[in-house]
């Protein structure tokens, strides 16, 4: 069987990776490095550090692609429990400026909420896959509880971006698992009704962000500055952009965080609408390819988990680009695989590794 597989898919099958998705990811990361070079004021050192981080992420992807689905299913409860435990530890003794998100392990600083981005979908998928789909009401309730606990812990750090990502990836699994439309509508109505409660739970700075999003001009030099300057950067890019490393908003320090959260604005300013369409298309192809692979996984567990990984990638993109273009409030979510930073890239690539690994096993079921 192995020999046959090798004949038909060659090296990619052996590595349990999808060549098309991998190619698209490499294209995206390469483009990202080009933009990063400009966003860091032509700092090659930073670019190289990012190359190393992406390398670590690709390695994580490769490793996670090799994990057998059954192994994942067995260990899901343990991994989930460990992640929740770490979140509780962070709440007690964590470090961080303003928000308490990190565990200081001496050598490295570790962010347990990142692990939860993988652990929660793993847990929910594994649980739902035990019984036939669509899930029963008690299972549904249990899953909602499984989602709510880490979301609440992360939100209390506070970290709105990650809690949204984790929560949505959990809900995405419920959706894929065939949650009835009536229940979806009911939950949606409930969520709308809960908005005031959400407002009450939010931290002051988060409320401020929402208010500022609704009306950036209420504090143009303070909270509204980021949104306004980002929109100016994007809008002034026009059709063709100002040219690589030529963006005045990016290079004259008007644009905040040009190499991390607002790197898409740098792209939009310097490469214009054409560059934006190109990169959005690249993302679109990656997501579509990812969903295609996910939908063709061997079993429900694989489809649910792989679909959640891809959906999380999509939510990253939507939240970040929505923020940069002023469609969504400012939430600290990086642009997937392009923003400077190793943690999110590693998590995303690891998730895509899971996806490709799960997909690669579909043939071995007769």
């Amino acid at each position, binding site marked *: 069987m192995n020999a046959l597989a090798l004949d038909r898919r060659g090296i990619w099958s052996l590595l349990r990776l999808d060549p098309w998705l991998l190619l698209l990811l490499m294209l995206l990361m390469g483009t990202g490095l080009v933009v990063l070079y400009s966003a860091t004021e032509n700092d090659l050192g930073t670019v190289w550090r990012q190359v190393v981080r992406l390398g670590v992420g690709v390695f994580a992807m490769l490793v996670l692609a090799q994990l057998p689905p059954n192994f994942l299913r067995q260990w899901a409860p343990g991994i989930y429990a460990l992640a929740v435990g770490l979140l509780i530890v962070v709440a007690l003794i964590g470090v961080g400026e303003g928000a308490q998100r990190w565990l200081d392990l001496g050598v490295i600083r570790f962010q347990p909420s990142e692990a939860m981005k993988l652990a929660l979908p793993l847990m929910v998928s594994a649980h739902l896959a035990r019984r*036939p*789909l*669509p899930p029963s009401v008690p299972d549904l309730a249990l899953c909602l509880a499984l989602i709510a606990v880490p979301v609440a812990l992360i939100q209390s750090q506070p970290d709105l971006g990650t809690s949204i990502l984790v929560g949505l990836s959990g809900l*995405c699994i419920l*959706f*894929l*698992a*065939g949650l009835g439309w009536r229940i979806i509508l009911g939950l949606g109505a409930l969520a709308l009704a809960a908005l005031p409660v959400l407002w009450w739970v939010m931290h002051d700075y988060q409320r401020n962000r929402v208010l500022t999003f609704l009306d950036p001009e209420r504090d143009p*030099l*303070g909270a509204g500055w980021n949104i306004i*300057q980002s*929109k*100016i*950067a*994007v*809008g*002034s*890019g*026009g*059709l063709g952009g100002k040219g690589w490393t030529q963006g*005045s*908003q990016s290079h*004259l*320090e*008007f644009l905040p965080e040009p190499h991390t959260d607002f790197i898409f604005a740098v792209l*939009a300013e310097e490469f*214009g*609408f054409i560059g*934006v*369409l190109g990169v*959005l298309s690249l*993302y*679109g192809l990656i*997501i*579509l390819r990812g*969903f295609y692979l*996910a*939908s063709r996984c061997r*079993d*429900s567990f694989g*489809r*649910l988990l792989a*679909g959640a990984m891809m*959906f999380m990638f*999509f939510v990253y993109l*939507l939240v970040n*680009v*929505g923020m940069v*273009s*002023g*469609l969504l409030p400012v939430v600290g979510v990086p642009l997937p695989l392009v923003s400077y930073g190793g943690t999110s890239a590693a998590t995303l690539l690891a998730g895509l590794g899971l996806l490709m690994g799960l997909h690669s096993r579909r043939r071995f079921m007769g």
Partner: protein
Amino acid sequence: MTTSISRQRIRDEAAEQRLTQRRFRVLILLVVAALLALGARFAFLQLGAHEQYAARADDNRIGLRALAPNRGLILDRRGRVLAENRPAYRLVVVPERARSLSATIDRLAALVPISERERERFEAQRARSRAFESVILKSSLTEEEVGRLAVERHHLRGVEIEPYLQRYYPHAESVAHVVGYVGRIDQNDLRRLDAERYRGVTHIGKTGVEQRFESTLHGFPGLERVETNAQGRVLRVLERQVPQPGRDLVLTIDIDLQRAAIESLGDQAGAIVMLDIDTGESLALVSHPGFDPNTFVHGIAQDDYDALLRNPRRPLFNRFLFGGYEPGSTVKPFLALAGLEHGVITPETQVFSSGVFRLPGHGREYRDWRREGHGWVDLELALAESVNVYFYELAVALGIDRISRELALFGFGRETGLDLPGEGQGVLPTRSWKRARFGQPWYPGETVITGIGQGFTVVTPLQLAHATAALAGRGRTAIPSLNGPGESVQMVVHDDWIWEAVFQGMAAVMHGSTGTARAVADRVDTQLAGKTGTAQVFGRPADNDEEEEREQDELPRHLRNHALFVGFAPLEAPTIAVSVVVEHGGGGASVAAPVAAELIARAQALGY
């Protein structure tokens, strides 16, 4: 059990796959819709609203910076600097760039002292400038302050240390009342100023020449388009329109003469005016004591200002320009001219001075300064010895109307036209003036005292000098000027013999054996003409003159009479006219005349 479960599972697999496939399709639709929405959003921002955002990016990036023109220098007639511009540093804040304005100012206040006044001024200026324009917080930084700020500046957004040129008056007090000073543009200035011409300019002429010649000295500001980063730091200049500096102004003042005049006054308060008879050029214009105009350039501290205002010697008061004094006996030559012109007297007319004059039918005695009188005197002796009785009789014979007409011809009672703002007019008494002023008719006794320059008559030292110049020029002189020759004017017309008769009397004041100023004439090489005078300060009978100098010495200084002198030189071909007022000096002969003689000697040494 096992079989049924596994069978059920297999059946479920197919159904579940269909179920999840459907859901994947929904998700894909969602993703495609979201991406299309994002694409549409970027199309709107980058294509639809591109112009607007491009303009805002340029607004961000490009600032307009006004370049203040260099103010013209003020020089004396020999090119010596009276007002210049010296490099200095000031602290400015760009409100838009500062994250929190009040916190920024508080942090700055910890580094350099910032007074309440400076804060208020900052707020006022900020209120009327746009957010990206820099606003001055503190001027005239010391070197140490610049150093302290430079170290901290990188932590302070929107704060700059800016070099600029600060007005400086090297001669400080000597010419303060002529040159004046510049000060910060205030609300009143703003209302009448052309905003374009004063873009980036902080100071404007407030008094003196600085005010009068503002449009000459100011120039036109330039404009610079600069690229700045978010902190407001200028990265490069894109376009530059250079300012047009103000023109230098050469005054007619001779700073040497000016200083000599001040020295000759010593510590006495007073005024000195020296004019070129032909051209009206002001060689010296002194009001003493003066003040240091440099303290006004950046706003004088309230305490210091109050001290200047409270100073009993009134250093801020411009005596030569609007100080009003009784002319005293300095008016006598002008009465003599009127008497000769109207045939009331001839040079040979003899009047007997017994020491006392009475109006027919009136009991009131008008006294001579010499108690025993001067005996029989003609015009020359009457001027030389300043015989009051002669001029009482002359005044009564002329009548007030003819006296006022003659004095008016010489410019009393109106501005001379010197190019300084706010000139005083003095008072030229007439019947109509008195009716308007007091609602009373003119009384004959008032004519009597007008004959010796007392009563209602008030003159400024500038008017006295101008009238003396007109006298010396036989009726022709020029309007007093500070910037080049003044306009020539024929003010009075008399026959030559009339002028000569009066000149002879005025020469006798200086050179006659009994002249009131004979003691000082030898200080000057050439022949002089002059007239002493004493203006009463303390309400006394209207007949005191040189006689009372001894008594005067016993009075407290502020009650003593003002000493006056007018004169011109050289006698044969007059070139300069001078007036001197020494406040509370006592007598004109002993106090004012020596000052004038010394100054004339100095002027002649300098070639005037």
